[in-house]
């Protein structure tokens, strides 16, 4: 089993603050995906990173894949209340199509 650990598990911040969520593993992944899940819904893909060292930006969200393809981070600049949700990272292993999820980071952005 390829384990993905996310930190922090919970984060409560004020609107306008910056934050970073981490996703770490001792295993190498062929790609890593970040999802956001709202209550009562399934997770929805935000981004996929494939190349070691890759950085992708999605408006105020910046995603980075570690050089060794074992870890990733999600940085949110000037958080808004609409960013509130559960953020999940998921890694695709080298041995096939299996997608392994981290434990998630529950973000609460207060007005």
């Amino acid at each position, binding site marked *: 089993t390829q384990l993905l650990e996310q930190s922090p598990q919970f984060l409560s911040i004020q609107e306008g603050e910056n934050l970073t969520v981490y996703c770490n593993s001792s295993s190498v992944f062929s790609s890593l995906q970040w999802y956001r899940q709202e209550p009562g819904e399934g997770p929805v893909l935000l981004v996929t990173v494939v190349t070691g060292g890759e950085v992708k930006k999605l408006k105020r969200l910046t995603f980075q894949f570690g050089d060794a393809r074992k870890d990733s981070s999600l940085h949110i600049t000037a958080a808004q209340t609409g960013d509130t949700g559960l953020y999940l990272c998921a890694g695709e292993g080298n041995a*096939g199509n299996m997608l392994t999820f981290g434990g998630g980071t529950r973000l609460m952005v207060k007005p």
Partner: protein
Amino acid sequence: DVKVTQSSRYLVKRTGEKVFLECVQDMDHENMFWYRQDPGLGLRLIYFSYDVKMKEKGDIPEGYSVSREKKERFSLILESASTNQTSMYLCASSLAGREAFFGQGTRLTVV
């Protein structure tokens, strides 16, 4: 739009009952997954299938079985439901190496 449909949003079953959770996708995806989601534990993979009649155990297959007789349908079976199987169950589908699309989830309560 890709659609992944789970047969029930909410389900209440008695201990010892045989439970079927159905999932259908309409995008001809070869991969289909069943996860359960519990607070603090993230999404844990129960089973996944990469082709018709093909299945692979995930991290927590005990107490569950699956069936994939047709490409679009992936069923999760609880042979004899127990209270510790009370959870949110999420089905997903994907093409190899691509994002996973999730259903809205089935919240199962075993009493």
